[in-house]
């Protein structure tokens, strides 16, 4: 059983801008299609380790990015993951 965290974006522009900004840092992340269990305005999401999501959020907000949602997914093989939406203010 593993956990992954996801950040979603209002538009593709912000998803790609996030990737462009984070590439310049040592952060480990991947741009992925938004999991079906998450509702998002844009089809591409950022997946990262849950311990990194707070610092990634801060980096992106410092660069004036618009972010949509934050999620923690409990993943078990190909089973539908269990989704927990994270409150932006809690991070």
């Amino acid at each position: 059983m593993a956990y992954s965290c996801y950040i979603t974006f209002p538009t593709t522009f912000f998803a790609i801008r996030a990737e462009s900004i984070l590439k310049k840092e040592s952060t480990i992340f991947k741009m992925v299609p938004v999991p079906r269990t998450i509702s998002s305005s844009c089809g591409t999401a950022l997946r990262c380790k849950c311990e990194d999501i707070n610092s990634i959020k801060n980096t992106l907000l410092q660069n004036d990015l618009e972010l949509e949602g934050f999620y923690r997914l409990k993943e078990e093989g190909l089973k539908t993951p269990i989704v927990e939406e994270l409150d932006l203010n809690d991070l």
Partner: protein
Amino acid sequence: MTYKNEPCGSELNLYFDNAATSWPKPEEVYMAPERQMRQACGNPGRSGHTRTLDADRLLYETREAFAKLINVNDPARIVFTLNATDALNIAIKGCLKSGDHVLYTAMEHNSVLRPLGGLQRDGHITSTMIPCSSTGCPDLDFLESAYQDETRLLVINHASNVTGSIAPLEAMVKSAHNHGVMVLADAAQTAGSHVIDTASLGVDMIAFTGHKSLLGPTGTGGLYVRPGLDLKPLREGGTGSQSELDSHPESMPERLEAGTLNNAGLAGLLEGLKFIDTTGIETIQEQEKMIRSYLYKRLQELPGLKLYGPVSDEPAASIVSFTIDNTDCGEIGFILENNYGILCRTGLHCAPLAHKAIGTFPEGTVRLSPGYFTSTGDIDYLVNALKEITTLIQK
């Protein structure tokens, strides 16, 4: 690699029509659209797979490259369009409201005059033309007296496509902002060949085309919109985001981009932008200034030629217009191509008011527009051809 004015097809052509569209392009500009279609052919924003992401990345990189060129921090403020005309329509129709008054200069292209004319004929707006001198310089005293309570927008052609005259953008933006009026600059003839420092100019909107000095393919262009200025979209539709809503996304750049973009063309534009970045915009501006100055001086040697626009060493886009008394400019253009393989543009160049300002309406002029790759040798060949033509005319 050097890019020479090489033969086009089987005949020797010397290309003096860069103000219409630039040629030659850097080799990479020709290759990138094919590479884009073969290797990154996903539809940006529409799917999550690798090819789509590659296409998204290409758009982002192109936006970022253009933002850097015109000194804009946030690439979200750069919107891709079909060309400068499209960008100007989006800007004009997106910012004006019924009852607004618009100022524009006599050097404007039909891409400004026709949208404004249409809005005026339909009773939505009123407008006033700022007259220009015979060298194409806007009358700044007239501008100061032309503002009305309803004036919302001043449209300025950064460089005339007829004479190459450069408008005093900085002073005009300052004047407009002092009166609470927004400025739209048409940079069709300057983006890619002149330093445009958007941050220091404070201009509200800049329209550009990809296929002239930016050295990209036709069908590419864009619009810069300053932060805080929300234009009403001219087109609404698919963006790949917020698909559950029946209203168009409000955030930039999607706000002003509907439907699939010209990814293949923009891949070429990115290569043009990279060429400009590598070469240096200052180097390009200096080279074009030198070549225009050389062209102007050599044309002055020819008796019978009347030259228009800024004189030899004054700031100008790389354009010189001329006429020969009692001679049809179309005929001169025909002889230049037919007898000498020299390509140029004759007539009104879609800017009738500019020709009225410089006194060449309705006949027009012969317009010569060398580019970054034009050599002094190309100009010597052109001048020799014109020498023979003027000798023939004088007989």
